[in-house]
């Protein structure tokens, strides 16, 4: 269907004219085929059908919305797709480049990365007559699709087998190649423990630039040689150092607002020269298996949490072992003595930051939901479709907890067996 709204002046006129013989038909047509709730009675009096007014709200209660939004809600074809009002910006001939190397933790742009892209936009867009372009440099595989929305004009994606694992020396050599070819005006990296913080310091040492670490504010300053001034934390967070913005910047989270009002091209580019061959002096032997039970709940990456809905506790413990998940519990499960107190998740227990949080039989008291605020993906297994945990969850399965857990264990064991077979075959 075309997005253009076609006006029919004749129909509009009929809709205004209550005495027109086709008035009712036109009204019904314009209302998207719904029942007309107002019509002219036989004696010329306006009659209303109150049952046709309004809409049924999410809780099954009839709602009458007088803000005018309801009119739009009645015509699903038009308003369901909210129009993207963000301005699309393409920079063909940038005066300079600002390079950002996001961390891409978990293969997606983190909020820290987005803040950094926002800062890069500030630096690039300062002079409208000479706009710069923001270049995002991404290593390895990723799942992100919204680089343009986050503010990147160019995207350099270095993929392939070579970029998987811990390869700081190869990455620095690649960034050096980008420096030679693109010569960005600024290099921005997130000052995170592993990833940007390390890579940025390596890059600065390699380029011979003195970086500014722990930058949390960047301002315009005509007096400084680069035109910008930054405020950085020093002395373990006790001092602020105000200095001219150097070429290599390691910025903290919330150093700038993320881009929200514009969309950018995120045009893929590639390096004309081949990638450098680096003599690897650091060899990655892979991650070491750690016992998930020994990981503290606050640090755990993957938590299988049990609540009142769990009846078969042995099945739950077995599932946690098979999945390799750290065990958590809701307050009820702890109070009933099924789980130890140090496993309690929530405002009165531990605030967790897991990447994946599976809540089995937990309805989601507000204290519990507070405790899992910073979890990225929440999976709920519950019998009650209307509970708060299901509303919070990214994936909710309505069903009996023990049956779903048993099926999940079976599926994972099957997957493990397949993997083992593949390994044996290879």
């Amino acid at each position, binding site marked *: 269907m075309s997005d253009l709204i076609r006006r029919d002046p004749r129909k509009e006129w009929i809709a205004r004219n209550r005495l027109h013989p086709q008035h009712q038909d036109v009204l019904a047509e314009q209302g998207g085929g719904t029942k007309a709730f107002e019509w002219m009675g036989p004696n010329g009096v306006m009659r209303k059908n109150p049952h046709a007014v309004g809409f049924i709200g999410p809780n099954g209660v009839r709602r009458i*919305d007088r*803000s005018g*939004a309801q009119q739009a809600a009645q015509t699903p074809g038009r308003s369901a797709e909210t129009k993207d009002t963000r301005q699309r910006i393409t920079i063909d001939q940038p005066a300079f480049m600002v390079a950002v190397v996001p961390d891409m933790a978990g293969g997606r742009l983190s909020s820290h990365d987005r803040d950094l892209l926002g800062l890069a936009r500030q630096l690039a867009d300062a002079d409208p007559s000479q706009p710069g372009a923001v270049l995002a440099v991404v290593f390895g595989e990723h799942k992100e699709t919204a680089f343009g929305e986050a503010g990147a004009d160019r995207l350099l994606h270095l993929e392939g087998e070579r970029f998987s694992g*811990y390869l700081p020396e190869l990455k620095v050599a690649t960034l050096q190649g980008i420096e030679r070819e693109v010569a960005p005006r600024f290099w921005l990296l997130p000052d995170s*423990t*592993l990833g940007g*913080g390390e890579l940025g*310091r390596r890059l*600065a040492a390699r380029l011979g630039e003195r970086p500014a*670490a722990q930058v949390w504010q960047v301002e315009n300053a005509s007096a400084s040689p680069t035109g910008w001034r930054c405020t950085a*934390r*020093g*002395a*373990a967070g006790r*001092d*602020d150092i*105000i*200095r001219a913005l150097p070429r290599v910047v390691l910025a903290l989270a*919330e150093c700038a*607002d993320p881009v*929200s009002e514009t969309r950018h091209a995120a045009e893929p580019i590639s390096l004309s020269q081949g990638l450098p061959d680096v003599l690897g*002096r*650091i*060899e*990655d*032997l*892979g*991650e*070491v*298996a*750690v016992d998930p039970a020994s*990981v*503290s709940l606050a*640090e755990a*990456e*993957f938590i299988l949490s049990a609540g009142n809905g769990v009846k078969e506790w042995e099945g739950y413990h077995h599932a946690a072992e098979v999945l*390799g*998940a750290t065990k958590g519990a809701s307050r009820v499960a702890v109070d009933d003595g099924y789980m130890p107190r140090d496993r309690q998740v929530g405002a009165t227990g531990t605030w967790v930051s897991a*990447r*994946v949080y*599976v809540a089995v039989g937990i309805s989601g008291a507000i204290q519990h939901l507070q405790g899992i*605020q910073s979890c*990225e993906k929440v999976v709920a*297994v519950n019998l009650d*479709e209307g509970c708060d945990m*299901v*509303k*919070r969850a*990214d*994936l*909710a*399965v*309505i*069903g009996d907890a023990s049956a*779903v857990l048993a*099926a*999940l264990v*079976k*599926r994972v064991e099957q*997957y493990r067996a397949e993997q083992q077979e593949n390994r044996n075959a290879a």
Partner: protein
Amino acid sequence: MPHNATSSTPGGLNVAVLVSIGRHPLTARTRRADQDARAVEMALTLDGASVSLIHAGQQEREHEEALRGYLGMGIDTVNLIQQCPQADVVPALADALRQGAPQLVLSGARAETNEASGVLPYLLAEALGWPIITNLAAVEKVEQGMATVLQALPRGKRRRLRIRLPAIATVDSSAPAARQSAFGPARRGALEHLDAASDIDEALAAWQVQPARKRPKRLKIVKSSSARDRFKAAAAKADGGGGQTLTDVTPEQGAEAIFKLLKEEGVLR
């Protein structure tokens, strides 16, 4: 385990630890720096390693007290390379390391005073041409010029790396805690003074240093045209946004969906 780390190098492993003057976060008194003390602890737990401590700075009474904190961990001497207060210590340290030729250099990830940018180990690695690794958690074994070490990752995970020696490794707060400093050894230990030319760090003069300001809190910005949307955003309960709900499915179908998500997120190993 660091206690079992063995060295097959004849004469033992030569380890240098770079130590700095720390500052207590509350009382602001000088002390041994926390991360540097952890680095010393890690060097001391290496089997058959000869440990030497290097500090580049000024000879002052307060600083001496802090350095004696390291001596109290069971070290005989600290090599104190004398530098003037505004000096860039990288050339002096690089010279000292070149002369001492240690196989492994340990240091804290970041200082507790002055700029504390944490770049110094990287600059040394670049100047000496040695590899550098961060977040060292344990040294497993050293043999034939290669060290197998564990690197601490977030979320309590560890990564095993093999690194060619000589190398630099930084230690941060994920490493084992440092032992207590004993008073007697701290008094008995000696500070050996070494003279070296100081390079003045000129950039420091242009900087303005002030006590840290509290960072402004970011406000939740709701961008919408109508009051109804703004009200909904303000009154909304936390929801996942676009969450998928599976009703009327068999346990197997539900388990399949969960399994798919777990695999996508890469938490199944």
